[in-house]
């Protein structure tokens, strides 16, 4: 029996890094950060309700379908349906009460992992949470069934399943066999070692025993109601367009939550959230951080507000298809020329003095494994930049721009517009590089063009956007830097990096894995496929101080991660 040591991964369906959803051109990206605060447990009383200002409303309750794969719905469903692992604010993970313990690697060849379900885990109709529930999730999201086909027969189970709409097949598409040992034990075989298996079944899953026979089934069967609960809360009422109310689930076997009800009020306009909080119409908000909104909330009496570093990080990408940018010295000159500390001071410090430069591409600063690399480029040096250019044979022209023959160092720098933060960043970079002798031409694009489209077509020289998620460092690193990855927009290729990524993908030991990943980052600093700039805040958590034990969690788990311990302060009236 083989087991990984301490797990370090984020739970969630986001197995691969995703482009920042909010990067699609709004002010939402503006933001800054303060350190994550984890409040000390305070005595609270049982009872009471809390209302949260939700910006999105689902059309149904199956968070695993592409139509309802919304963060706000996950906040709701994590209270109702079971899932396997919980990601904590420090990015460590632990099994939820749905499991009887840690999942275990039972074989290296074929790579096999076994999950045991808590014997106490039961749906609110008294049917046990079982291997069948996990199997239905697996069958629905393994990518082997074409959603366009009316039915298909699963080779392993022989079950006939209808076309299924699943938001993410990542991870489960690597599974070659699903075996139910008994109603509370199941295992899965993988085609290759899959060390990030704790991320599987990370989203709340629907009850199989009624879902399979429900009209609409997986895709739409849960549109009106989640029907059953196997979590701390259950649905009390859904007033469409207005609110979703949860009440305690009497059949819940885990720690009893203090609050009687949690209300998700549908308030799509975040600018109204501070006044609603001030007027006690909601007691907790989590809008995208914006300086003016943050200032407004900070002035409210009886409100605690904080913005915390998230897993989204801004970076400047190079397109290796541009022959000039394929020259290492040119990339080095850009890296030397950037005053990354100034960008942090200008753009992030308005939120918090603790904002800082990001010096890694594989870990973010919230993680214990984070190591700062690229010390060479930590401080801006125009001299080093120009020296690198001269070394590569470039000479300064009459216009102050370096060139080699007819090849002038003039590049298109693109961002998805409108995005005030990135547009300001562009200007700062343009000024810095002009001083070096590199001309920057700002050439932004807008919807319907997307970051994915511009990136995948390679229609850029330099490109600023953010990667988000980093639920699994290996998947993320592979996705961005492996030479055969579609998301390697700049077409960077280094066989040594490819080999290192492949090696770490099968390293089970956590410490070894972290060390290998940090080595990869050092290699990346050597090659400079991109330059990490800074982390962005996940959101602005603000809540009424009548409540206690609310702490932020910038992983995909979100700030509801510990809602069972939330409560009205024992001293509150």
């Amino acid at each position, binding site marked *: 029996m083989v087991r990984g040591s301490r797990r370090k991964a984020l739970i969630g369906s986001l197995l691969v890094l995703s482009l920042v959803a909010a990067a699609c051109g709004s002010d939402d990206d503006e933001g800054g950060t303060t350190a994550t605060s984890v409040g000390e447990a305070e005595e609270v009383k049982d009872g009471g309700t809390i209302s949260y200002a939700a910006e999105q409303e689902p059309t149904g309750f199956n968070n695993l379908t592409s139509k309802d794969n919304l963060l706000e719905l996950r906040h709701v469903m994590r209270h109702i349906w079971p899932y396997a692992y919980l990601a904590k604010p420090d990015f460590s993970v632990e099994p939820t009460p749905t499991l009887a313990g840690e999942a275990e690697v039972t074989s290296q060849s074929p790579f096999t992992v076994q999950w045991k379900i808590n014997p106490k885990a039961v749906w609110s109709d008294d049917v046990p949470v079982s291997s069948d529930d996990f199997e239905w999730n697996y069958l629905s999201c393994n990518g082997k069934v074409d*959603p366009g086909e009316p039915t298909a027969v699963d080779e392993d189970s022989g079950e006939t399943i209808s076309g299924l709409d699943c938001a993410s097949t990542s991870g489960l598409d690597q599974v070659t066999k699903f075996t139910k040992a008994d109603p509370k034990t199941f295992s899965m075989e993988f085609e290759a070692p899959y060390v990030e298996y704790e991320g599987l079944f990370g989203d709340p899953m629907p009850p199989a025993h009624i879902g399979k026979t429900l009209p609409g089934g997986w895709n739409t069967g849960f549109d009106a109601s989640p029907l059953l609960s196997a979590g701390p809360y259950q649905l009390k009422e859904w007033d469409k*367009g207005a609110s979703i109310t949860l009440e305690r689930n009497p059949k819940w076997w885990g720690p009893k939550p203090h609050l009687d009800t949690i209300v998700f009020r*549908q308030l799509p306009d975040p600018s109204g959230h501070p006044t609603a909080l001030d007027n006690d119409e909601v007691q907790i908000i989590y809008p995208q951080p914006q300086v003016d909104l943050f200032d407004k909330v900070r002035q409210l009496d009886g409100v605690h507000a904080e913005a915390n570093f998230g897993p989204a990080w801004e970076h400047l990408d190079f397109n290796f298809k541009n022959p000039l940018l394929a020259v290492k010295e040119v990339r080095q000159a850009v890296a030397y020329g950037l005053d990354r500390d100034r960008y942090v001071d200008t753009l992030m410090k308005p939120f918090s003095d603790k904002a800082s430069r990001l010096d890694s591409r594989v870990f973010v600063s919230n993680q214990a494994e984070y190591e700062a690399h690229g010390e060479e480029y930590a401080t801006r040096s125009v001299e080093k930049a120009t020296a690198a250019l001269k070394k590569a044979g470039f000479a300064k022209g009459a216009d102050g721009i370096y060139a080699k023959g007819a090849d002038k160092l003039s590049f298109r720098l693109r961002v998805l517009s409108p995005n005030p933060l990135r547009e300001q960043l562009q200007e700062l970079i343009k000024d810095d590089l002009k001083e070096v002798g590199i001309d920057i031409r700002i050439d932004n694009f807008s919807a319907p063009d997307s970051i994915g489209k511009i990136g995948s077509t390679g229609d850029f020289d330099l490109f600023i956007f953010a990667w988000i998620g980093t639920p699994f460092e290996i998947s993320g690193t592979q996705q961005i830097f492996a030479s055969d990855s579609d998301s390697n927009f700049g077409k960077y290729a280094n066989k040594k990096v490819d080999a290192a990524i492949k090696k770490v993908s099968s390293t089970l030991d956590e410490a070894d894995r972290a060390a290998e990943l940090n080595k990869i980052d050092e290699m990346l600093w050597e090659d400079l496929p991109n330059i990490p700039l800074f982390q962005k805040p996940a959101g602005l958590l603000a809540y009424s101080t009548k409540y206690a034990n609310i702490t932020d969690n910038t992983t995909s788990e979100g700030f509801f991660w510990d809602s069972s311990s939330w409560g009205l302060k024992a001293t509150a009236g």
Partner: protein
Amino acid sequence: MGPQGDGGLNATGVTTRRLSGAGPVILGSDVLAFTLRRLVVSIPVVLASSFIVFVLVATAGGDPLADLRLRPGVSEATIELRRQELNLDKPVLERYGIWAKGAVTGDLGRSIRNEDVGELLVRRLGVTMRLVLSATIIAVLLAIVIGSVSALKQYSKFDYAATFASFVFFSMPVFWLAAVLKDVGIRANDALGRKVFFTVSEQTPNQVGGFLTIWADRIGHLLLPSLTLILISMAGWSRYQRGSMLEVLNADYIRTAKAKGLSGRVVLFRHALRNALIPVVTVVAIDFAAILGGAVVTETVFGWAGMGRLLVEALGVQDVNVVQAWLLVTAMVVVLFNLIADILYGYLDPRIRRG
């Protein structure tokens, strides 16, 4: 001679023929024929507008499934399925045909997020109706009173004050007025020591209590957004009423009525006010249809999920079925309210018998 002279233009641009001499208000059969005629005429208008809007939205250049494509892990097969479900794989004309066929049978299709559009529309329209109906009625009544009194007491302190206030509210951005009112509401709550004014949505979720508690809560939620709409709408309408009233008061037939020895009350209410209401009716009919289509800013700022927000959201994701449904409703409302306005002309001015 009436305020608009012989043969003026009504709200819809249709020339009205005014018959001299007092007569009965439009006869029942006349009203019916008139209504039917107008409704029949409106059908091609609605059809043409629905076609134009459909083509414009469907060919706007964006990708309705862009959001889905951006999400990690969504398979190509899933995206393809959604494309087929939404008929995005078909030519625009065929898509319009499918939509129109469904719309005729009452099936407005499904949204990009797979919601029943008919159900969505009914819900959103209900929200907007609750918000704008009472606000419009109050705004109209206040505008008539203030406009008329301003005209009667032209250049008085009241007239100056009303004129000043009208221009202030007329030129004030709605979102700003709403923000100010919210702030005032919260301060008032603090001063009162209880929550009378609410700043978001239509009601407190899961409100428990008796009939009075529930209605006090609903009215509390309605106060600030209604006040916003009332102040903005009333500002413009009261100016129309004032101008119209002044014109009527200076008309020959009012002088004649006074010379005949009719009491001031009869002259004011039966002769002056009645005629002066015609332009206001026109403006209110058009404005109300527009408001029902969406008091977008007010709905957004106060967190009401109404028609305006529905349109903005749908346009943002090129949800053509939702935009079409919105268009159908607002087009019908425009037709309906113009019809009501025309019928009201007949009531207000008996010389208008038929269009």
